[in-house]
């Protein structure tokens, strides 16, 4: 703590110290983890360079399985991105007071993970060097271009949405840190934030506006991602419910990612006081709802295919239920439905650890869900004379692992530069929230409105 005192100016609020601590002090464990992550990233980078040099032939992709792990990753990462901005925006607009400690950690996920979604598309391209043709010669008829548009908007919007609430905290650090260089850099990002009344009004208005904008954008993003599949004429891709199905899955996996992030932040930075069991409980309940909704969509989707019994659809259906992709499919059902249902529906298991465990399974399950959407259709082309099978090579695994590692690393680095819990919001909650909530609750109750 002595050290901390050296780094901070004296008049910092006591309750802010634990939040600022990770920025000021870095332990050995952190470096160990970073080292491991960097090694994984470097392996991934090596694999990627190899792939760029030699061509996509060194992956397990083939004819007719033209899409595999990379596209799965793309859909998955874009799905994860729904964790943050969407959840945070909904909670903000709903004036859910418990949101205050978790919005930041959620929003960061969105911004960071979007890059990896895009990166996986680039990796999947046969000629990544020409990807800018999408901007110069883009054909708006292609759903892939809709993706480009909506993801770009989403990325911009969520970056702004992350940045706006950061401003007061950056300004706080500009003021409270002793290091001059840091003060200088934070000063740049603080945009001359003085905390005046006018600034506060503008900020809060901007945040509210952004929250409203971000929600449809977020939903459109994953709807459009689903269109990449749904707009084709391929069996079991060409489905009308893919939009909501993908959005549901996205939010579902997003919550899981958020819970995991919160769990590790809470543990490693000792923020038990900020990220409380009630947060996990609430998110757990939300996840349970999404799990049920997800199951409902999965059920509907497959039942229609089965009942309709078109041969092309059935081929895909059976390869999921009993065929080559059955292990993946059933693991997915267990991970995304059985385990969440069992653990989350019980108040006693819906603990911090409980939700964390469920989240891990959901993450795995949701990745598998994307996988079992992409592949069974591809291995069963309509003309029944060509059959393929897909075994990813180490290249795809290495690149995937690299993406995950890089995401985690970037997330960790973020926590080292910016407070992962929105300090002013928590403070605001403490100062205004209670009163406001009281007022609000009062307004629900019978009696005269104030």
């Amino acid at each position, binding site marked *: 703590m002595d050290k901390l005192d050296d780094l901070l100016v004296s008049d910092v609020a006591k309750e802010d110290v634990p939040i600022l601590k990770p920025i000021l002090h870095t332990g050995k464990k952190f470096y160990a983890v970073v080292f491991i992550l960097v090694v994984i990233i470097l392996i991934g980078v090596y694999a990627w360079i190899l792939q760029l040099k030699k061509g996509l032939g060194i992956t397990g*992709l083939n004819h007719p399985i033209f899409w595999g792990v990379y596209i799965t990753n793309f859909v998955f990462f874009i799905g994860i991105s729904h964790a943050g901005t969407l959840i945070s925006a909904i909670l903000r607009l709903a004036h859910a007071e418990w949101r205050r400690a978790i919005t930041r950690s959620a929003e960061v996920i969105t911004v960071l993970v979007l890059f990896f979604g895009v990166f996986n598309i680039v990796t999947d391209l046969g000629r990544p060097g020409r990807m800018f043709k*999408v901007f110069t010669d883009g054909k708006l008829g292609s759903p892939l271009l809709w993706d480009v548009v909506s993801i770009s908007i989403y990325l911009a919007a969520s970056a702004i949405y992350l940045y706006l609430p950061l401003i007061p905290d950056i300004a706080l650090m500009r003021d409270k840190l002793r290091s001059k260089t840091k003060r200088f850099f934070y000063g740049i990002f603080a945009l001359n934030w003085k905390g005046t009344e006018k600034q506060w009004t503008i900020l809060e208005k901007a945040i509210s506006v952004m929250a409203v904008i971000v929600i449809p954008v977020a939903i459109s993003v994953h709807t459009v991602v689903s269109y990449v599949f749904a707009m084709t004429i391929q069996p079991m891709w060409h489905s009308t419910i893919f939009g909501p199905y993908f959005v549901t899955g996205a939010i579902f996996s997003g919550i899981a990612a958020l819970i995991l992030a919160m769990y590790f932040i809470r543990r490693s930075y000792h923020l038990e006081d900020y990220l409380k069991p009630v947060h996990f409980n609430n998110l757990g309940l939300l996840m349970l709802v999404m799990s049920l909704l997800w199951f409902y969509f999965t059920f509907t989707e497959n039942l229609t295919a089965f009942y309709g019994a078109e041969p092309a659809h059935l081929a895909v259906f059976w390869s999921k239920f009993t065929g080559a992709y059955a292990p993946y499919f059933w693991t997915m059902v267990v991970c995304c439905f059985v385990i969440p249902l069992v653990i989350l529906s019980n108040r006693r298991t819906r603990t911090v650890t409980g939700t964390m465990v469920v989240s891990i399974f959901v993450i795995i399950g949701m990745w598998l869900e994307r996988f079992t959407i992409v592949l069974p259709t591809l291995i069963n082309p*309509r003309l029944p004379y060509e059959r393929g099978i897909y075994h990813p090579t180490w290249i795809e695994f290495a690149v995937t692992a690299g993406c995950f590692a890089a995401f985690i690393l970037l997330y960790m680095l973020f926590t080292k530069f910016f407070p992962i819990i929105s300090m002013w919001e928590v403070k605001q909650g403490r100062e205004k929230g209670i009163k406001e909530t009281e007022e609000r609750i009062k307004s629900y109750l019978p009696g005269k409105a104030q």
Partner: protein
Amino acid sequence: MPRWGMVIDLDKCTGCQACVIACKAENNIPFSSPKEARLKRIISWMSVLPVMEGEYPDLRERFIPRPCMHCDNPPCVKVCPVGATYKNREGLVAQVYTQCIGCRYCTNNCPYTLKYFNWYTPEWPKEMENYLNPDVPIRSKGVVEKCTFCHHRLQKAREKARAENRRLKEGDYVPACVQTCPTEAIYFGDLDDPHSLVAKLARGPRAFRLLEELGTEPKVYYLTEGEWHG
């Protein structure tokens, strides 16, 4: 404006695959290796699909030569984000290799799975580079390719006809597969010309198209006697 189309008589096809080799020779299609072949990465713009029905000893087999269908309503064109694949005014579904970014969306949306991807840089032993057709480019790694109906032969045929001061007549332009087919099972011509042989055959009672129900309007017709069993 002609609308180029192909008619393949399955009753005449003997599955010899001369069309397959002719196509590979004409269009500089690289050959595979055993390893690549196991991954089904053989590029074969024209391939002969065997369709066998029944059980021993009551068997029926048909061979279906399958080039690009050059659909009038091509699903691959719709999804291309950069316009690398498009349908030209004569109904040829073209692939511009220098424009292709290799996203393979078109390959996935082709219900006939007949678009091919270059997984590696195509290579030939030095001696074999001699036989490459200088009219047709070598596709680079990472781009999608497919049967073009040998449209470079159209360019040349049209040029020849114009130089000879006459109109393009039937048979001036045929793809390499049509040219070589020993049994003359493959016909090629203008589907919009009601007097052309292909138009007549395509209207005939033996004609059908692959996956017609998808509404892709393929311009490759097949002829067979009796009922078609896909």
